């Protein structure tokens, strides 16, 4: 589904990713772990197409399409979802309006009919219930006045509504207490654990991986994948620390 080959990039002329390769197939959950400053968030933003994240070498293809030939909104319409470490606040635009415009933009790009107001509200209610988020929250402006945990739940509600093929979740576990972590973990499994979908979890800690079990774990350090393994690698990292494993 996603093939990243020897990817390098720069932000403000500074090299961050230095020849990163990674292959993700449908039905798989991958976790990328690594120390601060390794380039984890940079990888997420680069795949999402954030302005300023300049690709200087290598390739990434998503379902056989060159990802970097697509604009950010086209990547979303192709089925890519980026979960933000710090979800953005948009005063004056309600979550429901934001999501309906997003979903219908995606549907239009794929040549599908827009979803009616009634059908959309039904979908939003279902996904909000899945993540334990009050529908009233979705009537409020996007992320404005939300706690850290509410922002992350709202992100997963967005994911549920937009129904992507591949979710790249950047520290979705940060800011969550244990109860919220369980709910969000269960939400990710319910929405994304399917044979035709895949997940790339970016995290510092093992704890999310207790709820969303990865098939593969990778260690990202100094801009490239330095070690890959099964779920046991995450436990080893937790036990020994990055310094030991990366060395």
């Amino acid at each position, binding site marked *: 589904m996603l093939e990243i080959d020897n990817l390098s990039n720069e932000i403000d002329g500074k090299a961050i990713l230095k020849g990163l390769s990674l292959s993700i197939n449908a039905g798989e959950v991958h976790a990328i772990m690594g120390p601060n400053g390794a380039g984890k968030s940079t990888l997420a933003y680069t795949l999402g197409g954030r302005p300023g994240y300049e690709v200087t070498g290598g390739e990434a293809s998503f379902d056989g399409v060159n990802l970097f030939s697509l604009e950010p*909104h086209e990547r979303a319409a192709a089925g890519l979802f*980026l979960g933000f470490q710090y979800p*953005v606040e*948009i*005063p004056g635009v309600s979550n429901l309006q934001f999501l309906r*415009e*997003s979903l219908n*933009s995606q549907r239009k*790009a794929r040549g599908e009919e827009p979803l009616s107001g009634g059908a959309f509200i039904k979908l939003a209610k279902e996904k909000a219930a899945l993540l334990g988020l009050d529908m009233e929250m979705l009537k409020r402006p996007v992320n404005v006045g939300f706690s850290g945990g509410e922002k992350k739940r709202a992100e997963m509600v967005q994911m549920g509504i937009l129904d992507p093929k591949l979710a790249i979740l950047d520290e979705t576990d940060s800011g969550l207490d244990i109860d919220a972590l369980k709910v969000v973990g269960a939400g990710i499994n319910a929405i994304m654990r399917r044979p035709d979908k895949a997940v790339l979890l970016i995290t510092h800690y093992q704890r999310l991986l207790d709820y969303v079990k990865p098939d593969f774990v990778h260690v990202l350090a100094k801009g490239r994948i330095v070690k890959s393994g099964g779920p046991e690698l995450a436990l080893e990292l937790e036990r020994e620390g990055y310094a030991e494993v990366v060395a």
Partner: protein
Amino acid sequence: MTALALPTRKQEEWRYSDLDAVASVWPLPAPARIAIQPGASEAYHLIQNAAEGAAAIHDYVIDIADGARLDFHLLNIGGKLGRVTFDVTLGRDSHFELGGAIIGGGDQTLEIVTKVTHAQPDATSGQTIRSILGQRATGSYLGSINVARDAQRTDAFQSVKAMLLDRTATANAKPELEIFADDVKCAHGATVGELDRQALFYMASRGMDPATAKTLLLRSFVAGVFDGVPDEAVKDRLEAAALAKLETLV
């Protein structure tokens, strides 16, 4: 007014105007007069959407009598020059509310000029102005609030915000206060900004195409200006005209 010579840029209220366009319609007709009777409450609106290249100047002289109220909603979007001026005098315990939006592109010059005089005690006034300017357009708000010596307990505000879509567009905001009473509350604020790039990327990451995302952000920016329009049909017309204009800019 008609006897006067053409204005020059040395006159403060004409400083940012398009004087060539002004000359094409000079001399101006007498201003429209609105008188709100004591205790009455009325709502007026204007959609200034003159043809491309035209010069449209609307001058209002407004008297709001004791205990009366006027809500005026203005959408200023048309013509090469679109200029709307208000000279308002408030009676005792009266209220003037102005909700104004300027949306301009091309080489348009769009202006709102207000002079609100609190001549008597206990009157209130509110002015909310939002401007969206693209390409080489110029949008200006020049607003003075004058509080007479006896106009105690005046409560007035001016909230002026402009959004520039291009570096070549210009916004001028000049709130001005002249106060001769001592028990007075006058608030004013003016900001000029650009679309939030982080919000635009967030919206794109959810699949929104750039035009839809920008339009949504801009609609939320001007929302509120027309919230207080009492007649739903008028409100719909104002919002529809604003949206149609916005869509030509993004």
